[in-house]
């Protein structure tokens, strides 16, 4: 029986996870895997690109998979070569070098590219089917060309451009105040660059935060030295000529006429799925390659998509009033990894069950629905976590059962909002409260009920969180010697009976006769007892 042939196009973090999960099937010969990756570097963790861009993380520590391990298991791993075309009828993938590779299942993990906003001065190539037919070789797997001094932040080349600017202490203008834009802004500012964030909303992270959280975050950003220009729609960029005669970015011009000068413009305006290969192959695309809950293409069950290029929509869903299918790729790594694991398990099972020839028998199983993602700002000095819908306010009419609890302390850059339905979180925002944020994250992901006293969750970050710290060290029932479980009361009783030294107390009560760590405390209790003339400790 010939092995089940899987071709994976895209060897980023999601593709790499998918391939790794196939290792058992590769080793037992049930699966034949070909990996086609356009980048030459080993798969790396794109989540760390911002930290890499400011020099905080080396490439070594971003590498997430080992192609040699795949090769050892029998996979064919091709890097630095793009897939150019898919022949669905023949079930082959054609590579840029002309080679055709047959598949039983094709898995597209082509990811996403940075979104280039409409700006005077920046060209945006079209990627519709007609254009792709004519210019596909130039457009598939390629990023949009950007003028000098303008960059996105998606891959290692982008990171190198940013690093150059950071190293030079340059002025960096970040366009966009989403999570990724803020992460690079904070990291670059921390590394010594002058950073200005320009965005058109009222506050940063508008997709994730409510007004309160966004406002507190904006203040926290300014405190760390990142200037923020809100309510500003970017319209154009202007160029200057460098000494070497090259035209490069000079300033960003906003719709209301602001001119924001800088050395580097960093575009952080979201991402777009890389779905050209699918478009060209006649597969349905929307926010990405449209796949059902089994991660199979609506158009062709032998083709799957996972990660940033996959737009998961239940089969048969009607387009919304606006025209498009609901939802979009999440753009987050967690859901991509879960898709990779789930699909690999499905295909492994199919291969092991002796399928192999017919890919048409799509697996019926569907992936469990994703919880709404928790969004965390990766930054060292600003702590922001949010999830779910957070626009409800405490005084809203609670007709739908939604309840809101809120804590705002903008002066100290702290803000928490918990939105609940029947006691369970449906959304939350936490700014400047790291321990609270971590607990809320766990509660949200598990769907656990919140404590009735919501303020309990705020106290995790308070200085009084350790009750022992505030407790009376001389209260009668306070344990002094843990080794022998001896209390203040017992030591005082010993003193009252004549014990005058730590050694006396030890002989009488065994306090201090274990690890000895409490001898100082015993001496304090004795001294206090002597001072108060033997008055019992509870009087006060």
């Amino acid at each position, binding site marked *: 029986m010939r092995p089940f042939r899987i071709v994976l196009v895209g060897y980023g973090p999601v593709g790499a996870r998918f391939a790794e999960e196939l290792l058992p099937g590769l080793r037992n010969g049930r699966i034949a895997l070909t990996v086609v990756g356009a980048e030459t570097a080993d798969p*790396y*963790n794109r*989540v*760390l690109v911002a*930290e890499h861009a400011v020099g*905080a*993380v*080396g490439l*070594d*520590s*971003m*590498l*997430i998979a*080992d192609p040699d*391990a795949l090769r050892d298991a029998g996979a064919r791993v091709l890097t630095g070569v793009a897939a150019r075309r898919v022949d669905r009828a023949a079930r082959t993938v054609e590579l840029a070098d002309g080679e055709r590779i047959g598949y039983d299942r094709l898995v597209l993990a082509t990811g996403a590219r940075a979104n280039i906003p409409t700006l005077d001065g920046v060209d945006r190539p079209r990627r519709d089917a007609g254009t792709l037919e004519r210019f596909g070789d130039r457009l598939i797997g390629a990023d949009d060309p950007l003028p000098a001094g303008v960059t996105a932040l998606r891959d290692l080349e982008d990171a190198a451009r940013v690093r150059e600017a950071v190293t030079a202490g340059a002025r960096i203008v970040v366009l966009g105040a989403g999570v990724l834009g803020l992460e690079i802004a904070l990291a670059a500012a921390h590394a010594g660059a002058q950073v200005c964030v320009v965005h058109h909303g009222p506050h940063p992270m508008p997709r994730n935060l409510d007004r309160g959280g966004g406002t507190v975050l904006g203040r926290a950003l300014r405190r760390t030295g990142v200037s923020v220009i809100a309510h500003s729609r970017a319209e154009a960029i202007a160029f200057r000529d460098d000494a070497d005669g090259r035209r490069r970015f000079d300033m960003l011009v906003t719709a209301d006429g602001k001119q924001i000068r800088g050395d580097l413009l960093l575009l952080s305006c979201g991402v777009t799925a890389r779905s050209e290969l699918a478009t060209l192959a006649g597969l349905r695309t929307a926010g990405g390659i449209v796949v059902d809950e089994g991660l199979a293409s609506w158009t062709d069950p032998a083709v799957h998509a996972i990660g940033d290029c996959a737009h998961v929509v239940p089969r048969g869903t009607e387009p919304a009033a606006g025209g498009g299918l609901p939802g979009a790729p999440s753009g987050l790594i967690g859901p991509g*990894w879960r898709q990779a694991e789930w699909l690999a398990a499905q295909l492994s099972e199919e291969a092991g069950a002796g399928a192999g020839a017919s890919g048409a028998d799509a697996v019926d199983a569907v992936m469990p629905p994703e919880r709404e993602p*928790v969004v*965390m*700002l*990766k930054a*060292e000095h600003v*702590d922001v976590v949010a999830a779910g819908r957070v626009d409800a306010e405490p005084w809203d009419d609670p007709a739908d059962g939604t309840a809101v609890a809120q804590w705002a302390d903008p002066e100290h850059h702290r803000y928490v909002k918990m939105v609940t339905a029947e006691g369970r979180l449906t959304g939350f925002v936490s700014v400047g409260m*790291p321990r609270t*944020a*971590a*607990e809320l*994250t*766990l509660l949200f*992901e*598990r*769907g*656990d*009920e919140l*404590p*009735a*006293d919501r303020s*309990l969750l705020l106290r995790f970050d308070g200085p009084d969180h*350790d*009750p*022992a*710290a505030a407790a009376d060290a001389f209260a009668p029932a306070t344990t002094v010697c*843990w*080794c*022998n*479980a001896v209390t203040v009361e017992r030591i005082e009783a010993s003193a009252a009976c004549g014990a005058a*030294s*730590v*050694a*006396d107390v*030890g*002989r009488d009560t*065994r306090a*201090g*006769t*274990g*690890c*000895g*760590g409490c*001898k*100082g405390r015993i001496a304090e209790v004795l001294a206090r007892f002597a001072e108060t003339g033997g008055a019992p400790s509870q009087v006060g």
Partner: protein
Amino acid sequence: MTTLAEPSVVPQHAAATATHCPYCALQCAMTLTPAAGRAVPVEVAPRDFPTNRGGLCKKGWTSAELLGGAGRLTAPLVRGADGRFTETGWDEALDLVARGIRRTRLEHGADAVGVFGGGGLTNEKAYLLGKFARIAVGTSRIDYNGRFCMSSAAAAGSRAFGLDRGLPFPVEDLDGASTILLLGTNVAETMPPFAGHLAGAQSAGGLIVVDPRRTPTARLAGDGAGLHVQPTPGSDLALLLGITHVVFAEGLVDEGYLAARTSGARGLRRSVAAWWPERTASVTGVPAATIRAVARRLASRPAGDAGTAGRPAGGTYILTGRGVEQHIDGTDTATAAINLALALGLPGTPGSGYGTLTGQGNGQGGREHGQKADQLPGYRKITDPAARAHLAAVWGVPEASIPGPGVPAVELLASLGRPGGVRTLLVHGSNLVVSAPNAASVRSGLGRLDLLVVCDFFLSETAALADVVLPVRQWAEEEGTMTSLEGRVIRRLRAVAAPDGVRDELQILAELARRLDAPSAWPDEPRAVFEELRLASEGGIADYSGIDYGLLDAGEAAHWPYPRGSTGTPRLFADRFAHPDGLARIVSVARHPHPEREAAAARLTLVTGRLLEHYQSGAQTRRVAELRDAQPVARITLHPATAEAHGIADGDPIELGNDRGRVRGLASLSTDIRPDTLFAPFHYPGDETANLVTSDAVDPVSSMPEFKTAAVTVRRIIVEAG
């Protein structure tokens, strides 16, 4: 701080006996002085020794109470046709046991006889028990309660270093550390005098305690002494991967060490790349900033140079305990701790290291000399032909007569009374129905046996179910050796005579071997058994061949390996690890979702553990009045918010339940515990047995059961009057 003379100095006179505490692996030194005319025949005084430095905890101070006789078994008990125990003579009892073994062996094969040992037995008893099972009975079915204790750390240590010795350095080395990371261990309660060795790290502000509870140990990190990290139960592996991620990402790794002393670092770096701090935070509940802070502190080790301004002078130690090891991914979690230590260049570096804190008194020696299903004396693999040949020669038996590997504890217990399983079981130094996971199923397994024989000094909950109970000597009545948590072999000395009618287990085994017409010699004196153990261990990993009683009695600090002609090994790994290539092996590990926790959304997680006052199943400590009165019943700790949500007040009787069973106790409300976590001590019998709800799912490598993550529901119960 006052540093007066120890209150413990007791004049040494001829009749005083210098020995060690009967309980934990710290093996605190104590002196027993005869106390004529008292109910308790000796008086306990602490003795200066590197592990306890003249200190004792409450358990040690009161340990002699058990020598007083109350409740002591003094004659063999045999269950009659009426179901009641009758005292019998020794010959009659031993004949009965030997006949039972023979019958089971004849009808069902030798593997239908099982032997279950304990980590509290002396080296001599542990050794002879393994030999008895394999040579006198001919069964492969032997394992011990250390499987519930040290097996994950042992598997991880052997895999990484080629050798498993709990602490590969003397305990006092910790005194000089400026940073100590304690993972899942509550030493302040479980081995209190150990806490004294944390003082250096405390004063350097570098004691980091990872525990879902703010235990007394976690409190030691308060007031600027360090940091308490409070992850949600079962997320330790993710936390370690996250800390290791920061170590790599921020260039804190000791590249020279990794290159020179390890293999597999490349895979490790890649395996942690996916665990950036924020992702780790979302799984563990530990803030990203804390994860970074821990990594940076651990790496602040100045590799041997003197401390300069702003930099601590001492090294860094990482120590694990049962809290992170008693899981279905316990081996991988211990491995992740080891990998972190290796990335930082700690193991084998002077003043730094990794270790696991052995729990039971002889948990170390107990796992070295043949009680484990897959091992022969000297920490040898039972599948290794050279090891088998060596033992065959020492024992004077054909190699082929030594059985192959048996099955680990949980599997052995699951087979009780089942087709193809164990039908006659001998239990030594273990109180299974309290200490084994999924205790109700163990209890019913014991009920299916043809013959259950229990050796104990009290009628423990397990002994109470036996067909034959053989009364044995305890601690101060016997001689032998123990191997402490630092791999140091120490002497246990006889201070008092055992009551009439009580026998040493060595004698019992020798007598049974004779009745079974066993080949080989069966010495029944500790010294003679130790001499045989020396030969048996010679050339093995845990080589005791250079140690003898005379040397130990002279006070030599004998750390194994101690080959004949050497002076022992206080510090391991200085030049090489124990793998043939001398390198430490880095095995990359991954976190998988926990089946029980993930499936049980919105339920609470029970963690189990120990109290200061009690030891293990409480079979001994619950009989000491002072300890029992301090902790008479099981108190289950829960957060006030959790209690409020369930209508529970402090002191209420409550019940925890899941598919396996129900456990009862009194509610103890405390903000020291996470709201999603409950804590129950596992020392109590009957319906307070915490292990009625723990899972017998096991780690695939070590066969360690999942003690620490049981999903449970909680409710207040109304106790009926009368």
